[in-house]
Structure formats: C-alpha cells, structure tokens
C-alpha cells in the first residue's frame, strides 16, 4: 500500500526514540553460517518487531528488514538486478509490472497451510487473476479526509474541484491516484487507457491546480489535522487514525463516484535465495492469532479473514478501516495499464506539475 | 617641468597658514595622557607640546609607549586619561576619521585591491572640496614623493621604497596639519633608509607642516629631528633639542640610550655656585659644571657620564698644567671599525669604559697593549652630572 509513512516523521522518530525497525535491520547480520535467514523489503510499519521476533523464536529464521517509501524505489531495486530480497510488498499494479518483467516467481500455495484464511474478496483481482504471484497482505481505500467543521459532510470528489475550497485542498503527489479522481468524476474507470479521456482528465487536474494548496503523499493526515487544509485526498490508514482522534471534527469518505481499492501483496522476487523461508513466513502471517496481533498494532485492514475474531472491535467496526461491502463494490483496484498508457500518464502528470 | 608643476600646484595647498594658527604656537598638546593595556601602563601620564612646523621625534626602545602615544594622537587608540589638543581644539573624543592629522603606518597599510592612484585618492572624497581636481592632486602628491608614472600599478607590484612613498603621498594629498609617522623607515633596507631620512627632512622643510616621527633608532632621530622626546616605560625621560638630548642627557637612561654608557660613581665633596666638586670611586677628584648644582648636597652619592668620543687616551699621564680631568686605566680590548677604533678599558674602581678614537693617522693606537696601563683625560665641561636614581 502507498502508506508512505512520512520520511520526516520517520527520521524524527529515529532521532527522538530510536527507530526499532531500522535498528534491528542493521544489527542483524545478513546470513550467519548455518542460520536460516529471510530478507524482507517492505513498507515501514507493516512488520512490527515483536511479530518478527516471535517468528524467529518459533522457527529459528532470522528476519532482516529493509524499508522503502514508494513502489518506484521497489521497482528500481528489483530492476537493477543486484538485490537479494526474499520477500517484497508491492502494491496491486506494481505486482503486474513485476510479473510482466519476470521479476517475481510463483508462490506455491500448497506449502502455505493457512492460504485458506485469505479474504476471497481480494483474490482473483486483475493484477493476479489466478492468485499465482501475490498474497494480499493489507488493503484499503483512497478517499477524502475532511474537516467536518469547515466543509460539513461530503460524499463526492467534486468538492476537490469546487472554487470555494480554493487553497484548502491537499492532493496526493501520485499521478495514478490523482488521475483516478478526475476519471471517477468523469464517470470513467480508474484504469482508463483511452488517450483522449486521459488527456481530458489531465486538463481537469491542470485546472484544479490553482485550488490545490499542496501535493503530498507523506503526512497528508497531519496537514489536515493541523488545519493547513480542510480537504485531504489520501489513503484511509493514516486518515482513519486522525478521524479516530476527533470524530466530531474529522471525517473520512470514499466518494459515491467510486474510488481506488488498494491491495499491498507479498511477492517472492525471481532471484530470491530463501524461497522456503519466505513460504514459512507467509504461512505464519496468515495464522489467525498472528494476523490479529498485526492488525491490532498497525490498524490496517488485513487480507487474513481468519484473524477477525482477534481484532479489536474499534478497528474492525471502523468504516474508515474496514469499509462495507457496498463501498468495496464501488471501488476499483489499480491495474497495470501498459507501457504506452503509463508513458502518457507520466507525461500528463509532468504537465500538471509544471503548470 | 613636472617638478615645477607640482610646486606651483602644491604650494597654495601646503603653505596655507591662516592667521589664527599663528596665535597658537603649538600644533599638538598632549596633557596628562595615560593608557593601560591590562596591568601594563603603556603610556603613563605623558604631557608634551609639539610646536607648529617642527620635526618632532618620539624616541625609545620597543615597548616604551611611543607608538601607543602616536596612535592616540591619531585617534586609533582611546586613552584612559588626559587630553589631546590639536591646533587649539580638544580632539580627545573625536574619532580618527575626523582628526586633522594623518598617519604613515609602519607596514604602509596600502589597500591591496586599489592601484596607486586610487590608494592616494582614497581620502580625498572625505575632505571638503577634496574631490575637485582629485586627479591633479593625486599627480601632484605623487610628484612630491617622486613617484610619477606608477599610478596604475598595484601595491604588490611595488618595491618597499615605492610603497613607502605611496603611503606618504596618500597622507600628504590630504594636506594634514600634522603628519604622524610610525617607524616609517623600519621596513626599508639600510641604504634606502638613509636616502629616505634626508628626503623626509626636505619634504618637511618644504611643506612646513608638523611631523611627529616615531623611531627606536637614536641616530635616525638625531639626523632628522628638531626636538626629541625620549620615552621609557610609558614616561617621557627627556624632551629637548636633538643636540641637547645628545650632549646633555638628563637621566642615566637617556645617556645610555644615546650611546653614552660611561658612568662613573662618585660622592659630592662641595657645591660652589654652578660647580660641583666630586670624588670618584676610582679615587680622583673633579669639578663639574651643573646647571642644577644647588640641588646637590655634600656627601650625596652621584654619577657622571662622559661620552666615549670625548675621552682621550695616552700612554703617559698628562702634565699637571693640563686642566683636564684624568684617570689611570687598564686596556682590555680593542675593536677596529675603520673610521675609528673603540677601546674597552677598566679603571681602578673596576668601572668599564668605552673610548672612541678617530683613526686620524694610520697605525694610531698601536702603542697601547692589552692589559697595559694608559691614561684617560677629558674636558670637565664634557662630564654630565646626574643623580644616582632617575629624577
């Protein structure tokens, strides 16, 4: 998922409290002789230390964790061909790109006894129709976080194009997500490939730009929370935490036009050296207790349905974290739109940025 | 031609002498000025008057306070006490850039980023009417120091002597009422130094402005100065004409500093008018002429000084008819200097004495042998009486 925990925040934490994840990653040596290891390349916050430690205690496999902040970083690392990771966590459409470039290998579901615990709603999606390459991990939506006192209750993307909100809007600094907003307002799919439609969506974003205060994919929740904007286009995870902190003031909506359903999934790189360990780890994460423990710590919706029984009710019942089926139905998962369309989108986005 | 132009052009500027100035004969009056650096009294309540148009030197060893005093006159150093009066107006609280004096620095302090012309013209813009004809004024000043044609050179392209001249021109172009010079020849070699001494003296005569010159070189001070103030440990020991300081040092320090190191310890036997008769430690009696004779009391311990060149040495004792004072000595050392020979001898009291003898004829002094006996004699008028301690 694109929950890029703000680089700034991460460093602040590293300085103030010592960043646990980074600490272990650097203190544990790569592969001690004889010892089994697993090298994971992951978003920050996804795999808390105690979960990793418990896995090591149970199996003797040491988990080395390295962090990244964007799918681009992940792509770059794997494309460079010099990485030695055994597990990575790309987002939906990135899975498709990796698959197309033969950078990931099949996951053997038969070796994962807990595979049956996976949420069927997340399976068979376009990026991996046969569930051969990816195991959904966390998932969520992209919507609007808003300041209830300033804009009231809202349910449409159109507020982001409304003159009266000029200078109070934050948009994700993400070409696909921003285009998705414009496409949804136009009533199109977020995976639209018609150049004319995409260009039209691009024009909308260019016209919208003068209303936008800032493009930010890192700490959009804080920017909204501290009053610098009243509308923040963003991922549900961070915004849900803000909403939970003050429900009278803040709200989160997945607009009625439909939105992005994002799924971050585990993949095993084609050059992975510890494939057996990777399977063992995936099976461990799909354990009901472990899955619940994970969700209770990170507050993201999990692909592990069997874990539900152990998840705190305030998380399970929070619609910003676990949306209703009806909301899920109106959402789309981002697909790999192909090289040509990707190139066009890059170009359109560049124009928006330059405007 | 060039010389003519400069004379014509400079003359009205530098010889200007408004009537008002004449009423006040003093160019600079320093009244009870003091300056401490931490525990050290650099200048210890000094008072002196510098006359209009004179070449005045502050002479003393390094650390005696002469440069500090000069910098205080320039306004570059703030005093702890006392007043400085220039041309009748008290400038004690006036900052350096508003004082009608200019300083020539020891290391020249030329602006390295400006060429000669711009260096010299630097101060003109701060003088009323200074910017008018500045180009001509700069040329005239450069002519004055005989440095025409180097206007576009930069300081790092000049020799030491040339830099010195630029520094002079830069100060003189402002037509200061007083020119202060802080060991300006110190950075030059011996030959150039001698030339510049003469040239500076000529310049001062020609321009008629007051020069206050700081030096540690007694010969330089004697060559150039009208009057000299000899300083020691922040105080003025003696202030007199050059000849007077040389011939009649008033304190042992001045005597020594002026090269008269022959001190004789003695006791006063009697005082009669201006004549003081003393018995030297070496056993002989001599009568001395002392202007302040009544100050001495019989039995008082005193010293007298005779300059090395005032002593005459012979193998035999002069006849009694000779009115000169005399004493027997032992010859210890001889240093041949070409023009003269310097002898070191010792008298019965063990006092060491230098004798300076002009080598008038070839082979002079060959009659004296090491550790042999000899006689010194001198005109009593050349012996200077002074108290054991400083006054």
């Amino acid at each position, binding site marked *: 998922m694109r929950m890029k925990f703000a*680089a*700034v925040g991460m*460093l*602040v934490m590293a*300085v103030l409290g010592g960043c646990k994840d980074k600490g272990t990653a650097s203190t544990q040596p790569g592969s001690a002789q004889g010892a089994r290891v697993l090298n994971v390349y992951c978003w920050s916050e996804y795999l808390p230390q105690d979960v990793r430690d418990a896995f090591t205690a149970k199996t003797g496999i040491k988990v080395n964790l390295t962090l990244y902040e964007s799918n*681009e*970083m992940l*792509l*770059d690392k794997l*494309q460079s061909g010099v990485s030695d990771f055994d597990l990575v966590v790309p987002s939906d459409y990135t899975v498709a*790109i990796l698959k197309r*470039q033969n950078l990931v290998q099949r996951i053997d579901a038969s070796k994962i006894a807990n595979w049956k615990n996976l949420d069927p709603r997340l399976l068979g999606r376009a990026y991996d129709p046969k569930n051969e390459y990816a195991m959904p991990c966390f998932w969520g939506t992209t919507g609007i976080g808003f300041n209830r006192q300033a804009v009231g209750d809202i349910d449409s993307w159109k507020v982001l194009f409304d003159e009266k909100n000029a*200078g109070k809007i934050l948009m994700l600094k993400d070409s696909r997500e921003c285009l998705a907003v414009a496409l949804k307002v136009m009533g199109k799919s977020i995976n639209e490939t018609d150049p004319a439609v995409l260009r039209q969506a691009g024009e909308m974003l260019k016209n919208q*730009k*003068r209303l*936008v*205060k*800032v*493009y930010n994919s890192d700490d959009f929740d804080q*920017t909204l929370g*501290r*009053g*610098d904007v009243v509308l923040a286009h963003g991922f549900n995870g961070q915004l849900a935490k803000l909403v939970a902190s003050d429900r009278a003031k803040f709200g989160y909506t997945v607009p009625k036009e439909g939105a992005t359903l994002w799924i971050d999934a585990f993949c095993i790189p084609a050059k992975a050296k510890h494939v057996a360990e990777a399977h063992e780890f995936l099976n461990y994460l799909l354990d009901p207790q472990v899955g619940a423990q994970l969700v209770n710590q990170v507050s993201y919706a999990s692909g592990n349905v069997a874990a539900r029984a152990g998840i705190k009710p305030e998380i399970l019942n929070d619609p910003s974290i676990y949306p209703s089926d009806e909301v899920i139905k109106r959402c789309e998962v981002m697909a790999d739109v192909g*090289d040509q369309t*990707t*190139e066009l989108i*890059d170009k359109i*986005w*560049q*124009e928006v*940025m*330059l*405007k | 031609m060039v010389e003519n132009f400069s004379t014509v052009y400079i003359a009205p500027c530098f010889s200007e002498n408004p009537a008002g100035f004449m009423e006040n004969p003093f160019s600079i009056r320093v009244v009870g000025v003091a300056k401490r650096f931490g525990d050290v009294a650099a200048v210890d309540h000094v008072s002196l008057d510098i006359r209009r148009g004179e070449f005045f030197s502050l002479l003393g060893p390094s650390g005696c306070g002469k440069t500090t005093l000069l910098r205080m006159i*320039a*306004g*570059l150093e703030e005093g702890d006490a006392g007043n400085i009066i220039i041309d009748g107006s008290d400038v004690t609280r006036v*900052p*350096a*850039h*508003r004082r009608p*004096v*200019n*300083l020539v*620095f020891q*290391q020249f*302090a*030329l*602006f*390295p*980023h*400006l*060429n000669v012309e711009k260096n010299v013209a*630097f*101060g003109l813009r*701060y*003088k009323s009417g200074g910017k008018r004809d500045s180009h001509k004024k700069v040329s005239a000043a450069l002519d004055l120091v005989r440095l025409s044609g180097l206007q*576009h050179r930069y300081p790092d392209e000049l020799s030491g002597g040339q830099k010195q001249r630029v520094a002079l021109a*830069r*100060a003189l172009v*402002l037509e200061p009422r007083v020119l202060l010079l802080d060991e300006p020849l110190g950075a030059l070699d011996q030959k150039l130094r001698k030339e510049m001494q003469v040239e500076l003296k000529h310049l001062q005569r020609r321009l008629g402005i007051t020069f206050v010159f700081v030096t540690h070189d007694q010969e330089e001070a004697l060559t150039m100065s009208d009057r000299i103030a000899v300083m020691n440990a922040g105080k003025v020991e003696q202030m007199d004409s050059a000849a007077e300081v040389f011939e009649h040092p008033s304190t042992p320090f001045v005597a020594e500093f002026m090269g008269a190191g022959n001190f004789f310890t003695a006791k006063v036997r009697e005082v009669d008018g201006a004549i003081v008769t003393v018995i030297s430690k070496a056993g002989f009696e001599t009568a001395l002429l002392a202007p302040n004779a009544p100050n001495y009391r019989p039995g008082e311990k005193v010293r007298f000084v005779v300059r090395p060149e005032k002593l005459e040495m012979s193998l035999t004792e002069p006849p009694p008819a000779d009115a000169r004072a005399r004493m027997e000595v032992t010859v210890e050392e001889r240093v041949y200097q070409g023009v003269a020979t310097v002898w070191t001898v010792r008298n019965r009291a063990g006092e060491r004495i230098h004798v300076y003898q002009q080598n008038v004829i070839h082979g002079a002094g060959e009659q004296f042998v090491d550790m042999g006996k000899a006689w010194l004699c001198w005109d009593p008028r050349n012996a200077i009486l002074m108290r054991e301690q400083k006054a």
Partner: protein
Amino acid sequence: MKNGALRTWLQLLPTWLVLGIFFLAPMAIMLGISFREKGPAGTIKPIDDMKQYITKGTFLNNYRESLDPSYAGVYWRSLWLAVATTALCLLIGYPVAYYIAIVANPMRKNLLLAMVAIPFWTSFLIRMGAWKLILETQGVLNTMLGAVGIAPLDMLYTPGAVLTGLVYGELPFMILPLYASLEKMDRTLLEAAADLGAGATSRFFRVTVPQTMSGIIAGIVLVLIPAAGQFVVSDILGGAKGALVGNIIQEGFQRNKPLKSAIAFELTAVVGLMLAVYGLYLHRRRRKEAAL
C-alpha cells in the same frame, strides 16, 4: 629525470582518482544517459542504428523536450529563488560572520562558530520538518502572533516558506567562508582608512568588502549551486505551485532517467555558466582598471 616524472604522476594519482570516481565519472554517466531514449518502466532503450541516432538528432530529444516552454515557469522560479536565497544569505551572513570574526572575543568566537555548525549534527530533513512545525497554520509562529492578537498568517506552502527554508539551510555555507576571509583580513587597513577620513560605513564598503571579496565569492558559489538544485526544501515547505527544477528532476527519475539527466545536466551547465560569466566580469574589471 624519468623517475621524477613518474613520482609526480604518482603523487597526483590519488587526487585524480578521487576527482574521477566521485566527480567526473558520475557526471559522464549522467551526460551519457541524457543522450539516450527512455524505454518502458524505467529502462533505457537500446540504440538500434547509431548512425541514424546521431544524424537524425535523436540523441538531442531530451534536451529538446526539456527546453519546451512549459518548463519556463519552473526554471524561472528556481532561478529567482536561488538568486534571492544567495542574496539573503549574504545579507544575513555577512553581519553574523563579521560579528564572530571581528567583534566577538576569542571565547565567544569559538562558541558562536560551534553554533553555526551545530545544525549539521541533525538531518536536514528533520530540520525542514521543524520549519514546517514553525510555519504551519497552527504552528509556533502563528501561535506567537496569536498571542499578540494577530490573525494566523498563511505561511506554509508558499514561496516565502521555500525561501525561508533555503536561506536557513544554506546560511552556514555563506557564513563560514565569509568568517575565514574576515578573520585573515589585515585590520591595519581599516585603521588606515579611518585615518584617511573614512567613517564606519565607508570603511566597510571600501575596505572590508573588497578585502573579503574572495570569501564573498566562495560563499556565493557554495550557496547558489545547491540552492539552484534543491528539492527537499520545496518538497516539504513548498505548495502546489512550489516545484523547483530539483523536484522535476527527482520526481519520477526512476521512470524517465534520460530526460531527468538532461535537465540535471542543463542545470549544472547554467550554474557553471553563471559563475564563468561572473569570473569573466571580475577579470575584465581588473584588466580595465589596469589599462586605464
């Protein structure tokens, strides 16, 4: 003789190695990539026909694109922000350096120098994050303004915020060379100027400034170049319209390395050109003076 030449060469070798590995090689690689075409998903397209590639001018495509008028706004913004940053750093840095070098006593001098350097102990990102906390709507500054009855100002996500961040970040690089040149300045020149009638202001502009010109130029170079290529400051403190050349290069570099390399190289070239022009101007002025 031959031995001597070899020794000289060996003595210079480490310098050349360091320069080559850390400076020239990356530049050369970047220049090379800038002439290529991008392939799908961040790859670089292989060249099919080198002759055609050159004769048809394909290798200049990225430069052509980067000079498209649509980039003008970003270039202009980057330029004026870099120049304004440099000017402000000089304006603020000079008095600070002057105080440390000339006015402060030796003990305080060391303390102040340490204070100038202390920010380097903390990551630049964190310090920019701190500025965000200061400038935001409910931030430190607005809280203070509120205490004296001034309504909150819109400061974060403005060009002013970017300028503040840039000046803050680059200031030490201006202060340190200025300090060094002020420290070694011959103070008797100031006394000479005072003696010649120059007041404090005049002394400053006619002696101190020319005497510290080397420090000023070093400071300008050290500030202008990084300021022109900055992207962290504008990313964190800049608003929707705050993108600088640095951001354009950095964002999506992975997916279009050739174009971004071309822009980066242009940036390097422009800054280099600016410095060259300035150097030439100084040289000319000096020569003109000498020829007068």
